[in-house]
């Protein structure tokens, strides 16, 4: 069933463009229906899961790598997968209307469904590597979704930022998961969390740090949250789905998934609490100063994610609170995002301060907004209240566990500012009077929307807001079982065991006088006060913007330009276009490595260097070679240098002749002669070499060249002295005549014993001939006399040196598809 769910949604993704092509308007609802059926299927088994049944499905994938398609449905996975498919169906419906005229709607459906399948896979995966696979796929699909309107530079920039941030985190996560799983000896998550012995492993600390880096980037924690507000460049449907209800919860999900093992480890707990609290308060502060719908929602989302992360650091009680909060948040924030979408669709206004009294034209939407807003603010009677109440309670509880009182301050502040933000987006535009300023928009002015939005637009927020209400009023219906089953899974309690499931969520139990209640009601009140005095509040907090250079966006920008700047600087030095530099580095490397190793080899060698008598002929030849070589370095005319090259070659050839290699000598004489003739033919017209001067650069060059030359001398002496084994060539001498019918052993080697070498050799020769012809014949530049063929375009470049590299081909060919 689990694999079938993922496969079904993947199939929808593949079919979506076709469906969109075939049915246009009908495709969205149809796909939503498909996803809805997956939701229904999951909901059907929900009672079993909440009762403790765990579904397992396993298929082999790449056992060599520990990669297995292992899927597991427990309480936590159930909560997440219901959200993914449920919110997903609603969002598809919403998108089918809000993006009705978008040119890329088919591709949008496909990408969104691909994301949905990945997300579902992530929460169902029981194999760490499989989870990572899906994790990465959510990053990629999210990249494509944020960049849906890619003609806009901001959209592309936001997409890249999201990709890089979550991508970097993903790679950290991979390293962390592999480290942890290798230490534990299993890649199966349900098995991993039982391996308590890994807690003593030295790799635990880096593994935790890396895994948290992955989770914090994905869930937009401080200081990595900058990408999430940017991601609001995506269409609202995407923001509602990815960036509030599902993908950003992936990090929270994974933390929760590993909690049974790692909860209780000091580093893990304290990181979660500190980072979570900082994020909750920091993002709430930034968000409370915004007025644009989606910006407010984005920062409040970040703040809520911080809340969940913080709660996961607070042990078993925190797990329950986190699960409830997660569910509540998904419902109200998803609803509010869609509400923002409806408003945008109806009014094309994005600033909540410029709107008012929308309840008249958008009554259902306004109602949904009100319910969701109340839930977000934490007003009793809604599911959000339960989440918030448990949060406050657990924080107070943590205070007894030794946490600093600052924590309570952060919680209270975040709670208050979230309430203010709820009022800003759910109250201000709908239920307060329209601002009197000229920029105010009333939707009635737009005749196209005078009759209110189409049903696919408002049905989503209405359903989600309603769910939040039902969850608050009657938690036993669905909210409590699902959330508490998830909490059990997070706390690592075996399914069915007594535990978190005992925590009552209904209002009657939660509304009990005590510090928790006072604190949370106080926070709501403070939030409303902030909202009421928002102009003064914003003015008073303006100095805080001085901290922006220390904020997450600046951190991202600094990291981005820091890495690229380093890359630029290094590449400018290394790949600087100077062949001379390349040669120096290459030869310098040879010299260093060669001498570094030859030195040790010399030290270990005791063999004498063989001495052969030096006759006058050899002495003359050696001297002749040396003089020719010196001449090549010193002479300045081309012809002289070429002549010296020839002389050196002749001397070497004569040495070969003296030492018993007549074939070699003959060949070298012939080749040397030909080389000189060809060099003269080819180079005849070129000018003299530049003047010889003794410069510092020349000295360095000489030192490098001499060093490599000396290295070669050293190698020769070593090889001439040391003989580790008898040469194989005795075989050739013995068998050349008898078995190969030739008395000239060298030639027999060439054409028989080692004919394959010679085959390669003549191939090289043939290639060189073809190459010379190609160089001279195939010409893309410099229209010479041959170029003036009829039909040649007249706009041939007058100055060949400045002709573009991909210029027209001269000669018999039309043009060459050359490089640019």
């Amino acid at each position: 069933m689990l694999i079938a769910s993922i496969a079904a949604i993947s199939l929808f993704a593949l079919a979506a463009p076709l469906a969109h092509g075939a049915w246009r308007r009908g495709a969205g609802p149809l796909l939503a229906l498909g996803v809805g059926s997956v939701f229904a299927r999951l909901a059907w088994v929900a009672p079993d899961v909440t009762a403790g049944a765990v579904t397992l499905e396993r298929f082999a994938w790449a056992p060599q790598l520990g990669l297995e398609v292992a899927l597991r449905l427990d309480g936590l996975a159930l909560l997440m997968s219901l959200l993914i498919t449920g919110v997903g169906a609603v969002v598809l419906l919403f998108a089918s209307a809000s993006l009705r005229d978008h040119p890329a709607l088919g591709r949008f459906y496909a990408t969104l469904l691909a994301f949905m399948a990945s997300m579902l896979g992530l929460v169902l995966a029981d194999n760490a590597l499989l989870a990572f696979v899906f994790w990465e796929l959510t990053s990629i699909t999210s990249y494509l979704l944020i960049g849906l309107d890619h003609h806009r530079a901001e959209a592309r920039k936001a997409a890249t930022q999201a990709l890089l941030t979550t991508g970097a985190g993903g790679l950290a996560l991979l390293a962390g998961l592999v480290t942890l799983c290798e230490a534990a000896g299993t890649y199966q998550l349900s098995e991993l969390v039982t391996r308590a012995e890994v807690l003593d492993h030295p790799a635990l600390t880096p593994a935790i740090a890396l895994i948290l880096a992955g989770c914090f980037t994905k869930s937009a924690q401080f200081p990595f949250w900058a990408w999430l507000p940017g991601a609001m460049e995506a269409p609202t449907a995407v923001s509602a789905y990815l960036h509030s209800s599902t993908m950003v919860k992936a990090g929270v999900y994974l933390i929760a998934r590993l909690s049974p093992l790692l909860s209780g480890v000091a580093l893990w707990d304290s990181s979660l609490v500190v980072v979570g609290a900082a994020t909750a308060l920091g993002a709430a502060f930034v968000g409370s100063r915004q007025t644009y719908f989606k910006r407010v929602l984005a920062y409040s989302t970040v703040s809520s994610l911080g809340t969940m992360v913080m709660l996961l650091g607070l042990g078993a009680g925190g797990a329950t609170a986190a699960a409830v909060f997660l569910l509540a948040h998904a419902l109200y924030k998803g609803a509010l995002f869609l509400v923002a979408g409806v408003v945008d669709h109806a009014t094309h206004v994005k600033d909540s301060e410029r709107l008012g009294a929308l309840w008249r034209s958008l009554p259902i939407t306004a109602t949904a907004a009100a319910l969701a807003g109340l839930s977000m603010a934490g007003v009793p009677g809604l599911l959000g209240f339960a989440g918030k109440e448990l949060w406050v309670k657990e924080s107070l509880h943590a205070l007894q566990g030794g946490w600093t009182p600052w924590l309570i301050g952060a919680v209270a502040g975040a709670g208050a500012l979230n309430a203010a933000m709820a009022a800003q987006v759910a109250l201000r535009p709908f239920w307060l009077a329209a601002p009197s300023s000229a920029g105010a928009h009333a939707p009635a002015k737009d005749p196209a929307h005078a009759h209110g939005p189409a049903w696919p637009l408002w049905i989503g927020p209405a359903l989600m807001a309603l769910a939040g209400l039902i969850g608050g009023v009657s938690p036993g219906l669905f909210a409590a079982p699902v959330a508490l089953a998830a909490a059990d899974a997070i706390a690592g309690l075996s399914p069915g065991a007594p535990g978190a499931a005992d925590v009552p969520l209904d209002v009657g139990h939660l509304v009990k006088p005590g510090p928790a209640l006072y604190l949370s009601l106080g926070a709501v009140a403070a939030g409303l006060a902030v909202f009421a005095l928002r102009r003064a509040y914003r003015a008073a907090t303006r100095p805080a913007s001085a901290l922006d250079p220390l904020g997450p966006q600046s951190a991202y920008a600094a990291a981005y330009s820091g890495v690229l700047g380093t890359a630029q600087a290094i590449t400018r030095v290394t790949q600087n276009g100077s062949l001379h530099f390349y040669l120096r580095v290459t030869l310098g490397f040879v010299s260093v490595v060669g001498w570094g190793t030859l030195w040790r080899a010399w030290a270990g060698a005791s063999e004498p260097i063989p001495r052969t008598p030096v006759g006058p002929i050899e002495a003359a030849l050696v001297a002749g070679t040396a003089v020719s070589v010196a001449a090549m370095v010193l002479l300045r005319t081309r012809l002289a240098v070429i002549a010296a090259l020839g002389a050196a070659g002749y001397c070497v050839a004569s040495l070969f002749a003296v030492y018993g290699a007549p074939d070699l000598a003959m060949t070298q004489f012939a080749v040397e002669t030909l080389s000189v003739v060809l060099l003269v033919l080819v180079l005849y017209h070129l000018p003299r070499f530049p003047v010889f001067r003794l410069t510092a650069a020349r000295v360095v060059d000489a030192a490098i060249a001499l060093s490599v030359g000396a290295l070669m001398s050293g190698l020769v002496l070593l090889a001439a002295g040391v003989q580790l084994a008898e040469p194989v060539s005795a075989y050739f001498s013995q068998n050349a005549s008898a078995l190969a019918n030739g008395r000239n052993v060298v030639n027999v080697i060439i054409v028989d014993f080692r004919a394959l070498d010679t085959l390669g050799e003549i191939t090289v020769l043939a290639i060189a001939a073809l190459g010379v012809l190609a160089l001279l014949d195939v010409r893309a530049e410099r229209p010479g006399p041959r170029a003036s063929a009829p039909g040649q375009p007249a706009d041939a470049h007058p100055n060949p040196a400045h002709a573009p590299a991909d210029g027209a081909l001269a000669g018999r060919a039309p043009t060459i598809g050359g490089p640019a």
Partner: protein
Amino acid sequence: MNALDSVILRTTTRLLLPVLAFFSIVVLLRGHNEPGGGFIGGLIAASGVALYAIAHGPDRARRLIGPDPRWWLGLGLTLGITSAIPGLLSGAGFFAGLWVSAQLPALGTLKLGTPIWFDAGVYVVVAASMLAMIFRLQEH
């Protein structure tokens, strides 16, 4: 470079050409037993034709050798590669030398084998590649 306007050179090269051609074949064939072989032989043949080209111009030299040097390159390479095939077919392995000998009156036994076939390929490739380059450089 065009043909040198020299009757003597033309006549000499016309006479020299067959001599060099014959000599190159001798060098090719004797290479198995004495210094020589396909490479040197090919160079000698090429130098004969190159001299002819200097005297009579590359166009006439091209006509002399018939097909384009690139065709000869292909032929030579093919000769070299195909000498691997008899060995393959006989089951001894590619490039395995197979020999036949013929009794020639007055010259004694002539041994011919796939290695000489191979060396002939070397000869053709060397000559053809030299000529391809020399002709083109001459025309350039």
